[in-house]
């Protein structure tokens, strides 16, 4: 039975500060378990730029699951019904594939430039990546247009449904990546205020690059799926 008196006693006993050490608590807390993995010495866990990379990996896991679901739906659907008529591949897809492959290279260069602190080079590679990304999206739209001109629509047959669906979902995610790049670009015009924000900026850039490479690889996978498995 917890009575009110207990409450008040407890309030006195466990005042904040009792056993709460400062930010530079000097002694290893010890005990059986060892330390938490967050935060090295003098660098609070709560500021670690590592979180951008961790967060990105986690986000990619969920995007991976989304496309796994759609892929398994694709494979199952290809096996049911007798209405599966593969569409002819729009030639423009080779162009978009080339564009996105190149953009993966340019973003790697951008990241390298950032690490060497060559800021103007970083900006230029970043900008080129954005252009290539937009180019990719434009080419995807053009290939849709080609298909429409051939009277191949979303509902024409299951293969075309999946083609439109997968390219659209991938395109939407890539658009997100372009926003990310834009953001890096915007920030690159401002000087980093401290070593810490410099580290943050680098972490953010590498997270975006990771995302971008994933989108690249994802497109290659979808491309192969759509035109080899059919």
């Amino acid at each position, binding site marked *: *039975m917890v009575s009110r008196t*207990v409450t008040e006693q407890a309030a006195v006993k466990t005042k904040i500060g009792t056993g709460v050490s400062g930010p530079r608590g000097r002694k290893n807390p010890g005990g059986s378990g060892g330390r938490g993995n967050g935060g090295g010495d003098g660098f609070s866990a709560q500021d670690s730029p590592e979180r951008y990379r961790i967060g990105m990996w986690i986000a990619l896991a969920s995007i991976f699951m989304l496309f796994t679901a759609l892929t398994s739906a694709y494979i199952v659907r290809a096996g*049911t*019904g007798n209405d599966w008529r593969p569409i002819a591949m729009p030639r423009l897809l080779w162009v978009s594939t080339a564009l996105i492959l190149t953009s993966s290279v340019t973003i790697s260069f951008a990241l390298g430039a950032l690490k060497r602190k060559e800021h103007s080079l970083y900006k230029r590679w970043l900008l080129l990546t954005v252009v290539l990304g937009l180019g990719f999206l434009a080419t995807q739209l053009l290939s849709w247009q080609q298909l429409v001109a051939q009277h191949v629509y979303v509902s024409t047959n299951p293969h075309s449904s999946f083609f439109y669906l997968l390219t659209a979902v991938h395109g939407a995610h890539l658009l997100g990546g372009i926003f990310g790049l834009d953001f890096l670009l915007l920030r690159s015009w401002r000087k980093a205020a401290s070593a810490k924000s410099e580290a943050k900026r680098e972490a953010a850039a590498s997270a975006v690059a990771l995302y971008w490479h994933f989108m690249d690889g994802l497109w290659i996978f979808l491309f192969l799926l759509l035109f080899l498995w059919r």
Partner: protein
Amino acid sequence: MGRVLAVLIWLITLLTVILFVSKRWWFPENISQHGVGIDRQFTITLLVVAFAFVAAQVGLGYTVWKYRATSDDKKERATYSHGNNRLEVVWTAITALIFISLAVAGQRVWASLHFQDAPPGTFEIRVAAQQFQWNFHYPGKDKAFGRTDPKLINDGNQNFVGLDDTDEHAKDDIVAPTLVVPLNRPVRLLLRSRDVTHSLWIPNMRYKQDAVPGLEIPVHFTAQKVGQYEIACAELCGQLHYKMGAKMLVLPEEEFQALMAMSQPDFQKQRDEYLKKYKLP
């Protein structure tokens, strides 16, 4: 308060056990061959479940009663223990053993229904589900099903299954909202649906199977008692789902044979006779 809680937990446990043991409400009578196995497996499982349920609840009540703090004296301490690994392992092993063997035992009836094809001499009936009625399609005198085509489905003409009248075999086919099966002879049903997913549910047969649009699902079973029984739909199929019912007649072989040889109008008349003769349980 610990004692009140313990008594409440025990009381709930007791009432639950009474509700199950009294069998005031229980399964409808089983009339199928495989149902015997299902009922046996259910009883075994229920005993295990009941034992675990009672043991856990009684144990919970006991700890709550026994280990309540009796005074506000702060000196009184609980036992300091972080657990007991050996107990943990033993307990895990025991439960794993029980659960897995139940799971394996539970497959027997399932295997007999799904892994063996219907035995020879099986009578085949096609089931065409639609919102909100069951159509049972019998081959008729010539023992061959007429051609069906979904294009020909026309509710206005009472052609619910899309029977092609130009087909020779179709002429004597019977389509009725009543499932008629022979006594002690295996029956094979071929389930189809023309609109949404339905589920054929015959409580007395201990059988349930979805009828899925686009699929043809075969099931087989044997009815062992003459009479009239109820069929329900067990998969949500729309606003009138609750009354998508039908009747099942289990008839002695001679009566069944005679009925199957009739023309559609005679069939309906005779079926109505049987529905009067064999009352619902």
